């Protein structure tokens, strides 16, 4: 079967295709996210000076574009979610403004029991208003 990613221009790798900025994060948002995750740790659930967001909170940052221009938009419907690698940085606290920068990070092949697989990795780097790294999220899509 033809490689579904063969036509993607490799020059797109590493180029920023979107920058999104959140509104100031509220305690309510953080608590609702923690509740949705099934958290029981009071650090993530009780409003007050010690409240911080659950470490994976950064994945909730809204983006308009999932893939860069030059990558067929219907591609995401033809692949399979191959998971996320999340590197966690500093805590998110109420009032933080998060900036997410998206890049097409990698395209690579591997071979498995069922044949050739191609992976596309989209990286989202999230920082707070002080420029501190909150999370680096690598979203993998797998294509057969």
């Amino acid at each position, binding site marked *: 079967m033809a490689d579904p990613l063969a036509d993607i221009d490799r020059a797109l790798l590493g180029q920023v295709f979107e920058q999104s900025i959140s509104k100031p994060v509220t305690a309510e948002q953080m608590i609702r996210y923690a509740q949705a995750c099934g958290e029981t740790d009071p650090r993530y659930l009780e409003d007050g000076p010690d409240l911080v967001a659950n470490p994976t909170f950064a994945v909730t940052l809204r983006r308009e574009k999932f893939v860069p221009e030059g990558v067929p938009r219907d591609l995401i419907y033809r692949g399979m979610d191959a998971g996320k690698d999340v590197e966690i940085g500093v805590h998110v606290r109420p009032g933080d403004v998060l900036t997410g920068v998206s890049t097409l990070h990698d395209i*690579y*092949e*591997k*071979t*498995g*029991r*069922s*044949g*050739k697989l191609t*992976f596309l990795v989209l990286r989202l780097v999230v920082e707070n208003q002080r420029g501190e790294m909150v999370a680096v999220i690598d979203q*993998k899509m797998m294509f057969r």
Partner: protein
Amino acid sequence: MILDLHAHTDASDDSRAPIEGYLKWLRKKRDLVPIDGIVLTEHRQWNPDVDYRDLEDRYEIVILRGAEVETDYGHILLYGVNDEMTARFDFSDVHLDAQTVVSEVEKLGGIAAPCHPGRPTIGLCEHYEHKAPLEGVLAVEALNGGSRRGENERVGQLMGAFGYKGFGGSDAHLVSLIGICATEFERDIRDVDDLVRELREGSYRAVDFREQVRAARG
């Protein structure tokens, strides 16, 4: 001396096992998986800067490194990787020519050994059904901890037909699977040179700890 010759840490894209997780697990489970060392064989890569000597000393477990590359005859483990090899081959290329890998790696001081030969698509057995056998293969992974029922069983026939030696490896991608299959060497192995020499010329056999690990889990 018993070594697990095939394991992946979180440096591989499909593993979540940190090296220290393996070492802690092996220390705790020595009665179940009595292995003396591991060989990390990350997928399609070689990082020359990694140094595990401190961890070796701390956990008293030998840590050696190889690589698992992908070829037109399936996956092949490389032991004795050196700068010349990484200059000669692009380890990330999933279309490497297996015969060239086997021949060149030997010339460059290492050994290339096909792994999980009984596995569909990426194992040697299936390729031998419609292609000429590789020249210069000395050993294959006779026992692979990640193989499905029937896959390891196919390898015995292959070894008999071509006179290959057989070794074992867990192919662990998760901490709790390290050491479940391994290789017992007659002589001690302290470094990669020892490993290459013993795989080429020494006496060894694949050993299987899966049953006792399963029994302990209940």
